[in-house]
Each structure stands twice: as C-alpha cells, then as structure tokens.
C-alpha cells in the first residue's frame, strides 16, 4: 500500500467517517490528521470498537450484583465470584462477517479471539460454547457455511485443548448469506490474580508478543461495521488465518508469566490490533503510551505505518511489564518459543505517540480516541411489518389430519433434531471436567479440587424477537436461566451477543432497543446482571436484515455436583409431572414454521414473577433430591419435550404414557406443539410426589400429574384418545439421523 499525498473527501468516506466526525478529529488534534492518524481514528471510532450506536442503549442493562467482581465494560470480560477464592471470567463474541466470507477461518479466528480475551485476564479457559445461525439446510450454500464454520471451530478449539461443551444451532431463511457465529469462552481464575487490561506506571515496558504482523485483516473493525454486499468477496485479502498452536503457547506462557508477578496489564490484539490494544490499555490506566513500530516483527515486506497499526493478524498480544523485570518476562516467552519484543513505554502525558525509528508517525491524545469518541442516539421507529406479522388468524389454519405425522415432521426438523453431527466434531471432554456431555439443557463442567460445578446455557430465539423484540429479549434470558436451573444450578449472571441489522435504519434500531429493554428487565427480575457482551450490527444480506437475534449466555453455579440433575427419564414407574402453567402459543413456533411455513403471531407470554418462582421451585426440588429428571418445555412444545425426555440417554431409551386431561378446548396442535414459557417436565418416584406437591403449593406454582415412565412407546393421550403412539427406538432414530441426512446430501 502507498500513502496518499493528501486526505480528501473520498478517503474520509472510505474510512467510514462522516464530515462531522472528521471535523471532530481536527478539533481533537488541533490540526489535520496524517494518513496513519486518520486510520487510527477510523478504527477506534468504528462501530465495532466504539459502540457508538449502542452505548447509550446498553446503559439500560443492570450490571451490579453482590458477586460481580468486575463490571461490564470495565475490562475485556466480566468477572463473577463463585466462592472458594475462585472467580469466573466469561464472555461471548461474534465473528459473523468473517465467517460469511471464509467460514472455516472466520469461525476459527473467532474462537481464537474470545479465548485471548479470557486468558489475558489471568484466567485459565475451561470451556467454549458456540451459538450458530444459518440459512435453511436445504440450501447448498448454507450447508457449505455450516460445514466450514463447524470445522473451523473444531480445528481451533480442539487443537488448543479447550472443550467445546455445547451450544445451539438454528436454521432460518433470514440468515441466508449472513450466518451468525457467536462463541462463548469461560475461564477460572484465583480471585487475587486477576489481571487488568491497563497500562499504567510511567516507564513500564510495553511488549509485543506472539505472531508477526502481516497485512491480514487490514481494517477488519471497519469491515465488521459495514453491511455485507455482493462485493464483499473483494475484501478477500483481509481474511485472517488462525494458528491455534501459537495461541496454545501464548496461553501457557501468559499464565506462567502472571505467576511471576511482573505483569502490570495485558490485552489481546483483537479488532484494530496494535492500535486498540495500546490505546485502550493506556486509556484505562489514564496514561499515555509511546511505541516504536520499527520493532514490530513483520511477516510481509514494505508495510507502511498505517498497515502496521491497523493489521489484524491473529495470535498477538500486548503485555505491559514492570520496568527492570523485562528479562524475567523474556525468559518465559523464550521457553515457549515466542516472539516477545519491547516496543515502547507507558508515559504520563496522556498522548498516544507512534514512532517509526526516530520519526513520529502519529501523535494523538488517548482520550480523544476512547472516551471522546462520538456517540449517537439513532432514530427509532416501530417496524411496519409488525402489524401484519402479529396478526395470526387461527381459524384459517387447518387442523392437521394426522397429528402423528406432524409430530414426526417436527421431530426431524433441523432445528429440533439431534446436533450430534456438530458436537462430535468438537473435543468436548478435554480437561476431564465435562460432567454433562453436550446434547442437554446446559453444559456442566466441574471445578477440580472443589465440589462445585459450572453450568452454562446459550439461548436466543430470532423468530420470537422478530415478532416481539421485547418479549423475545425477556425470553432469551428466562430460557437460558431455566436451562441452567434444570441441571440444578443457580443462575448468577449473563453475557450476551446482540446480532442485528444496520443501526441507522430506524426500524432496526427500534428492534435493538426493545430487545435490550427485554433483556434488561429479565436480568433485573431474575437477579442475573449483565457482565459484558458484544454487539454485532450490519448483519444483512441482499434480501434484508436478519431477524433480531440476541444471544444470552447464562452462567449457573452448582455448589455440590453430586446433585447434578439430568433431563432424561430414568426409571419404570416414575411419575411425570408438569411444573408451571404458562399460556401456550403457536405464534413463532417451530410447528407453525415447519408445517405451515409461517412466521407469524405472537410469541408465548412470559410472566417474570412466575418464572422466578418456577425456577426457585425447581432448584429446591433438585437440591432436596426429590426429582429424577428435569427438562424445560421449549422449541417444538410439550410433545417434543416429552420425546426428548425418553431418548436423551442413548444408552437407556425409555418410554412413557401421558394422559392430558384438561385443556379440553385447546386445539390438538396447540396442545402438543404450542410453545410456552415457564414450564418444566419432571420425573420422580411415586413416594416423593406428595413432598413435591407440597413445595409447589408453598411456592404457588401449579403442578400437574401427566403420566408414568415406562414401556417401549411414547404414548400421548388426550382424555383417553390416543394422539401419538410411537416406538421410542423409532423416535430416537428419526431424531438422531435427520440433520446428518440433510447435511450429507
């Protein structure tokens, strides 16, 4: 690349800066910026780094809590106290656009990035989860993306040796061409060895550590802050390649280095690479920083300062080391065969100064890049599609002639059927902590040398959010919490990844605001503060924006893992109980989409007070050892939930007979496949039933006896009339093989 002679209107526009923003830059510098400085401003002020459109809205989130050690936004990830002197660091991040262009490497580097966010805080990463969205599996391009993304996650996570213990996958027309790849990483750290992403203490040394710098990912942050177009493939040279082996060395070296006590602060070079890591650490430390980029290890010849500062080459970090301790640090990096070069010093003048040898190539007040970045309150307008979309006329929907056929069709829908083809490609056992393997309500990982276990669930329903972003946002939190409750964990806090279209479109921004408000209220009610997250805008393909898709990652804690609860039925003769009594709805349901090809109506309603009581009740029952299984009713409704209870344990399939007595007026399709909130299916031995009833009554949670575990069939009757009667081996086979079959076409 060559430096342009003069900065003109064209160049400013190409950097995604408005005329007003450019004026603001001039004011901050009290002069015209040079090309390198313009580049630095453009990435730091990009949506991706500055959160300029979302910042004001995200303030609605509750962030405080008695066990929150580091609040959202203060560091690269939130920190939650789990007792025993330990804390959990966790965060979720998106890599949607890179994965649309190059699914394998895009997803792989997404995994690499979020892992660095965790271990640079001093935590050892113990689990990964992935939340994925694709266009329909019937579309060859979507299958190509699915294979690539799953392969990339597997490549990176398996090699570095962090188990991918669960996730979720959903297929819908709206994600065609713009898949979502959200990855969560969780690490554990001793409370007293948390490392901050801060550069402070004049004279301390700034180290560049890891891979050398190339032109890859140039301008990635601004790329993520733009819509995908048919031209996007021309952005190709910016594709980054993941190197999980290098990252493994970085991980081990970093944790070893932290134990020596010479580290002042540390940050990963993620989006906007060297620029953002230096600027953000200096800003948090209220310091300045001076670096000499002639010392930066380079992979390519002839790179200009602009390119070095904006490169997003992977597997690089910035480490601030106490002065006079440099040799100690170097020794450890050398042991792990890593590049580690002192490139500069922390200063006290609040200026970010970049030199190349003796020549100053950029000099910018740090705060002008961070705290003083532009912030916007974007226009909002209720989307016009809603009125039509919310209006579902039930009487126009024909009742299915053969309800059992409908059951089989839903069971084999890619959204419902087993995701084994995906999670068997992930090493989900490395670390020997995974005590509940993937395929269940939550992933559960024990904490060695304690009796504790951590449960995590990722949830978000784009269809619900499309039909009602506020309810959809609430439901994402409630469902994630319910999922960790079902394994016996107490929900503690969330992280999130908010995936939306273009924020300057008032209808999109309205969706965004409503979703955030929904998440916020649910987090308040359920007392699970938001510890951090990530916003991904500009998720659009030529056909329009994706459905609004906020993903919630819920952290739950089990104090004694001998009380782990699993979702599958266990014993012949156990009673099957429905806990909770929400209002069923077929609006936005899998049934409506799969059978009637409609995305209409209203999502199920969620009453947060009831939800909280339900979760409290379920936890109490599990902790008292009164139930043998717990599984929440979600996608696909009651019939699918019951089927899952029968087949989730492959080694021991077991049938059930259900008699639905009430709900007489309800249509059979709603009864079986209507979706609902605040309901959990439990099973228990008959002698425990009275105690369970007592506890439910005390907590004012409704409870219904549905039937009995046993036999070789799943039989669902309504007032004695058989609606479904099917062999569980067959049910299992259909559920287990449907997705694989479609992928392998």
């Amino acid at each position, binding site marked *: 690349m060559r430096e342009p002679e003069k900065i003109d209107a064209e160049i400013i526009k190409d950097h995604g800066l408005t005329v007003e923003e450019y004026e603001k830059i001039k004011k901050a510098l009290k002069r015209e910026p040079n090309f390198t400085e313009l580049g630095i401003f453009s990435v730091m002020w990009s949506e991706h780094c500055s959160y300029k459109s979302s910042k004001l809205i995200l303030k609605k989130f509750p962030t405080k809590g008695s066990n929150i050690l580091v609040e959202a936004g203060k560091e690269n990830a939130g920190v939650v106290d789990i007792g025993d002197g330990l804390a959990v660091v966790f965060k979720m991040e998106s890599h949607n656009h890179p994965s649309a262009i190059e699914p394998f490497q895009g997803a792989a580097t997404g995994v690499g990035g979020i892992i660095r966010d965790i271990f640079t805080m001093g935590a050892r990463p113990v689990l990964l989860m992935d939340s994925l969205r694709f266009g329909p599996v019937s579309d060859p391009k979507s299958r190509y993306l699915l294979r690539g993304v799953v392969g990339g996650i597997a490549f990176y996570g398996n090699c570095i040796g962090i188990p991918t213990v669960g996730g979720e996958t959903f297929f819908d027309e709206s994600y065609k061409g713009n898949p979502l790849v959200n990855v969560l990483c969780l690490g554990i750290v001793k409370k007293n060895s948390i490392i901050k992403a801060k550069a402070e203490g004049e004279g301390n040394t700034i180290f560049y550590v890891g891979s050398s710098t190339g032109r890859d990912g140039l301008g990635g942050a601004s790329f993520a802050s733009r819509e995908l177009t048919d031209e996007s493939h021309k952005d190709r040279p910016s594709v980054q390649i993941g190197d999980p082996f290098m990252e*493994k060395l970085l991980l081990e070296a970093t944790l070893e280095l932290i134990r020596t006590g010479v580290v002042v602060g540390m940050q990963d070079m993620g989006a906007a690479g060297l620029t953002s890591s230096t600027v953000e650490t200096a800003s948090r430390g209220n310091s300045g920083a001076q670096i000499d980029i002639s010392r930066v290890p380079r992979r390519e010849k002839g790179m200009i300062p602009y390119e070095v500062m904006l490169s997003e080459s992977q597997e690089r970090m910035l480490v601030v080391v106490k002065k006079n301790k440099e040799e100690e640090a170097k020794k450890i990096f050398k042991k792990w065969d890593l590049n580690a070069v002192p490139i500069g010093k922390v200063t006290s003048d609040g200026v970010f100064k970049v030199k190349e040898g003796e020549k100053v190539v950029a000099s910018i007040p740090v705060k002008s890049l961070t705290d003083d970045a532009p912030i916007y309150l974007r226009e909002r307008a209720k989307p016009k599609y809603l009125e039509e979309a919310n209006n579902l006329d039930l009487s126009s929907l024909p009742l299915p002639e053969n309800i059992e056929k409908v059951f089989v069709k839903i069971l084999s829908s890619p959204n419902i059927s087993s995701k084994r083809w995906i999670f068997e490609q992930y090493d989900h056992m490395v670390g020997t902590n995974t005590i509940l393997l993937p395929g269940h309500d939550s992933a559960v990982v024990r904490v060695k040398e304690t009796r504790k276990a951590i449960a995590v669930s990722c949830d978000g329903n784009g269809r619900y959010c499309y039909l009602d972003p506020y309810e959809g946002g609430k439901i994402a939190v409630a469902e994630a919490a319910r999922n960790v409750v079902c394994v016996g964990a107490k929900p503690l806090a969330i992280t999130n990844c908010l995936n939306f279209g273009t924020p300057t479109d008032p209808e999109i921004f309205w969706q965004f605001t409503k979703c955030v408000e929904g998440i916020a209220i649910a987090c308040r009610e359920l007392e699970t503060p938001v510890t951090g997250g990530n916003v991904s805008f500009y998720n659009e393909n030529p056909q329009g924006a994706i459905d609004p898709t906020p993903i919630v990652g819920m952290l739950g804690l089990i104090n004694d893992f001998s009380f782990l609860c699993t979702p599958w039925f266990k014993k012949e003769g156990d009673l099957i109980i429905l806990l909770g009594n929400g209002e069923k709805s077929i609006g936005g349901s899998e049934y409506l989409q799969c059978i009637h090809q409609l995305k209409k109506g209203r999502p199920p309603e969620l009453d947060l007070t009831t939800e909280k009581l339900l979760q409290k009740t379920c936890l109490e029952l599990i902790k008292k050892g009164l139930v043998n299984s717990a599984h929440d009713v979600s996608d696909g409704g009651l019939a699918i939930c019951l089927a899952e209870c029968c087949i989730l344990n492959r080694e021991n399939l077991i049938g059930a007979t259900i008699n639905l007595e009430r709900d007489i007026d309800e249509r059979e399709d709603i009864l079986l496949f209507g979706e609902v909130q605040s309901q959990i299916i439990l099973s228990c031995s008959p002698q425990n039933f009275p105690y369970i009833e007592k506890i439910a009554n005390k907590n004012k949670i409704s409870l219904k006896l549905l039937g009995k575990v046993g036999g070789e069939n799943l039989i669902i009757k309504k007032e004695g009339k058989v609606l479904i009667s099917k062999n569980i081996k067959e049910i299992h086979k259909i559920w287990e093989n449907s997705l694989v079959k479609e992928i392998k076409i």
Partner: protein
Amino acid sequence: MKFGVVIFPGSNCDYDCWWAIKQVTGERVDFIWHKEKNIENFDCIVLPGGFSYGDYLRTGAIARFSPVMRKIKEFAQRGGLVIGICNGFQILLEAGLLPGAMRKNKNLLFVCKYTYLRVENCSTPFTRLFKRGQILRMPIAHFEGNYYTDQDVLSKLKKNNQIIFRYCNRKGEITEEDNPNGSLEAIAGICNKEKNILGMMPHPERCSEAILGSEDGKIIWESIVESLKDRNRGKK
C-alpha cells in the same frame, strides 16, 4: 514409584493425565518438559494427547525430534514402561517405537465420542488387571486415528499378541459400523514385541473417575502400579 508426564509444545492432555494418575494411584506424578535430558528417576513415562506442534505437517512428526525422545527410547530399551495416548501414540509411531502410521479418519472429520473396546491381550504390564475379552467404554477424540500398516507387520503384530485393544460394539462384536475411524482390523491400541511400550487412541484419563461417566480407564493405571510393584519386589 514415579510417573512422568511429558509436555510437548501443544500437548493438551498433560494435566488431565497427571490428575487421573494422581487420583487413581496416589503415586507421585511429575511433568517432564520436552527438552529435558534426564529422566533417570522415572518408572513409567506418559506421552499425553493433544496437538504437539499443532499437528502441523503430520501428527507427531515434529515432536519426535524433541530432546526427551532420545532419552525415552533408551528408557524403553532398558525395559521402562511407556504409554502413549492419542497424540502420544502418534508420536510413538513417528518415532518408530511402535510400527505403523495414522491416516485421517475415514469420514474425514474429527470425532469425539465414547466407544467400546475389547481387551485383546491382558498379559501386558498395562492390562494385567483386565480380563481377556473384557468390554470397556472409553472416549476417543482425534482426527487421525485410522491405523495402518502393511500385511507383513500386521501378521507380526498378531503373531506376537501385540494388538491390545480393538473397537467393538456393546456386545464385543467387531463391526464396520463400530469402527469409528476406519482403523485396520479395528485396532485401537498396540504394543511393542517386549510389551513395555503401549500406544492407544482412546483416552483412559478421561474415564478414570465415576463423575465422568466411566471408570474403565482406571484399570490401566492400576495395572501399571501392580506391574511396577512386582518389578520393584523383584529388584529387592
């Protein structure tokens, strides 16, 4: 009695092995950095799973040149017990300590899941507490576990009872369907002629505690301890 777990750059089951051996045997377990040249004081050396050198080039191809490998060769020649698990097995193959090579899994995908294994030989120091034909439940996690060797070597392996584990189904039958990676004759683990070097793709350290869903891996660690005890008694 002392176990040593080698750490290569990119090993990632090192700590898991350390933990499992410690939990099961209570014996001393130390880590051995791959550049270490002194392994005199160990009784059993474990080459753990993972992705040494990222599995770049070929699995195990670069790790076999680590300085510690020459020492391990000598250690094995003296009759010391060496067990290579997953990537450790692949390194033993590349280093020529065991015969054969690994190819990509038949379905060309990484696979992580529980498998069933049949114990084919229980008169080795690693398997002496099993019963011949015993069926085990043990997880695998690899991309290249598709064992291959030519007919010549295969007949030698058979003749010397060097095939230790085979993949099978719940009932112990060897079927195409239950062979998770396409391995020749469903081979999951082999040892050398002298029976003091074992290589296996399944992970015993991942099933050495009840909380993890299977304890079948425990028996391997216990067998090793038994064998070492016998040997030490012999010495005295």
